[in-house]
C-alpha cells in the first residue's frame, strides 16, 4: 500500500523568509563551529599551547579579539591583533547576533500570538540586531579605526 507522502517535494515547497531562516539557523550553527575551531587552531599555532590555559584558549576561540588574551602570558600581542582576526571575529559576531536574535523571535512567537504583538517583537528584534552588531563591530575594530585611543 503506497502511503501519501506528508511533505511536499523540495521543488514545490518554495522559499519564504521563515524557511530561509530555518535553513540559516542550521548553516550559521555549522559556520560558528568551524569559526571557533579555526580560532582555537590559530591560537595553538600562535603559541598558545605554551602560554595559555585551556580557559584562555576558549575565551579566544569564542571571540578572537586581542582583549581576550591581553591578561595571559602571551609575550607579543601583534600576531593576535591583526585585521585577519578582526574579520574572523566580525563574521562570528554577525552570525551569532543574527542566529541569536532570530532564536529570541522564535521563542517569543510561542507566547505572543497577536499580530500586533508579533509586529512589535519584529521591530524590537531589528533594533537589537542593528545595535548589537554596531556595538560589537566598534569593539572589534576600534584599535584599527582609532589607533591613538
Amino acid at each position: 500500500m503506497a502511503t501519501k507522502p506528508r511533505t511536499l517535494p523540495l521543488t514545490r515547497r518554495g522559499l519564504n523568509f521563515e524557511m530561509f531562516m530555518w535553513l540559516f539557523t542550521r548553516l550559521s550553527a555549522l559556520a560558528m563551529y568551524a569559526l571557533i575551531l579555526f580560532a582555537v587552531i590559530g591560537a595553538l599555532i600562535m603559541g598558545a599551547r605554551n602560554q595559555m590555559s585551556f580557559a584562555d584558549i576558549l575565551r579566544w576561540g569564542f571571540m578572537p579579539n586581542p582583549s581576550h588574551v591581553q591578561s595571559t602570558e602571551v609575550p607579543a600581542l601583534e600576531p593576535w591583533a591583526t585585521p585577519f582576526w578582526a574579520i574572523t571575529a566580525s563574521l562570528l559576531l554577525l552570525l551569532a547576533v543574527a542566529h541569536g536574535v532570530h532564536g529570541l523571535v522564535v521563542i517569543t512567537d510561542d507566547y505572543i500570538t497577536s499580530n500586533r504583538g508579533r509586529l512589535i517583537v519584529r521591530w524590537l528584534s531589528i533594533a537589537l540586531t542593528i545595535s548589537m552588531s554596531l556595538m560589537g563591530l566598534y569593539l572589534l575594530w576600534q584599535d584599527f579605526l582609532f589607533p591613538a585611543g
Partner: protein
Amino acid sequence: MSLSRDVPLGTGLRYRGKGGQLSFVLHRIGGLGMAIFVTMHIVASFFGGEIGGFLNDIYENWFFQIFVFFSALFHAINGLRITLLDLWPRLWEHQQEAVWLQWAVFIPIFGIAVYAILSSAFGG
C-alpha cells in the same frame, strides 16, 4: 492570521515528550542564557566605566559562569544533534538514541568544567 496555539508555559513543561522535550526546553534556556550573557558583555565592553564594572561583577560570579557554560555547551551539542538529524532526516528514527549519546558527551565535559570553575572560584 493570528494563530490560536498559545499554550501556557506550565502546560508546555508538563508535556511528556521524553528526552527530546527536555532537550527542547534546555535548548531554549541555553539560548536565552547566551543571549543575555552576550548582550551584557557587549554593553559592558562598549560603555565601560561603572556600568561595565557592575555587569562584569555579575558575569564573573562563579554561579553565572556555570550557567553560561551550561548554556553554551548544551546549546552547542544539542544544536549539532538537531542540525545533523535535519540534514539526514532518516536519522530521526533514532532520535532517542541521539539524545542519550548527547548526554553521554555533555555530562563528562560539563562535570570537568564545573570542577574547574569551582576550584578556581574557591581557591582549590
